[in-house]
């Protein structure tokens, strides 16, 4: 509950341009996490809309999955890319925790963008549908948000 209160306080502060750098970067990393989570949830729902959300999905049985080309193999490949992206997200959050004003931008934040881009590349292999488009758009927003994190921290 305390964590939700802190996150609530953070998002309540999102509109101020004069916030300390680390607060701005943290806010954007929270946004990246939520975007990645949305993309993962959308892909999983596309693969198997009736599956338990907390359990692994090993077979795509959704009616739309076949029409957009989401085979079991592609689902596995996309999931693997998500695993890598979330690994990078963990590293980026860890690095930002250790970051102090004046430090160079953490390299782990920069690699996060590359790993989300890999997931986006896989998502673009699927045929067009509103859900596939949502995955791609969400991942692109996540990449843009990571770029904003780097910008907040004084990077490119």
């Amino acid at each position, binding site marked *: 509950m305390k964590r939700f209160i802190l996150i*609530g306080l953070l998002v309540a502060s999102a509109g101020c341009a004069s916030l300390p750098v680390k607060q701005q970067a943290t806010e954007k990393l929270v946004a990246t996490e939520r975007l990645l989570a949305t993309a993962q949830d959308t892909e999983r729902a596309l693969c198997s809309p009736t599956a338990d959300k907390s359990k*692994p999905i090993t077979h795509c049985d959704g009616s739309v999955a076949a029409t957009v080309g989401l085979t079991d193999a592609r689902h596995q490949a996309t999931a693997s890319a998500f695993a890598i992206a979330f690994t990078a997200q963990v590293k980026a959050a860890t690095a930002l925790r250790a970051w102090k004003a004046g430090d160079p931008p953490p390299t782990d934040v920069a690699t996060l963008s590359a790993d989300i881009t890999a997931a986006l590349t896989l998502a673009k292999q699927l045929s067009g549908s509103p859900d596939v488009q949502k995955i791609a758009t969400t991942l692109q927003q996540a990449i843009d948000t990571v770029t904003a994190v780097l910008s907040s921290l004084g990077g490119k």
Partner: protein
Amino acid sequence: MNPEQIAAYIQAGSLLLAAGGALVSDVKAMFGAAPAMTEDALNEILAGIEADAERRRALAQGDAGEAPGASATGGSSQG
């Protein structure tokens, strides 16, 4: 901003995020003011991000047929 406003913002933001349906960009549109946060508070939020990302990584690894807890370092984050 007075304490009552801050409390209302915290409650609204917490409920939105707890519901899992709101992106921060959505919340941004609702909130304009900005209390500065301490380093400790920011680090606690970052710890929350780490925990959530760890959970989702494990789920993705399960989907990918990888062993739970295996190191997902096949991409550019390796090293």
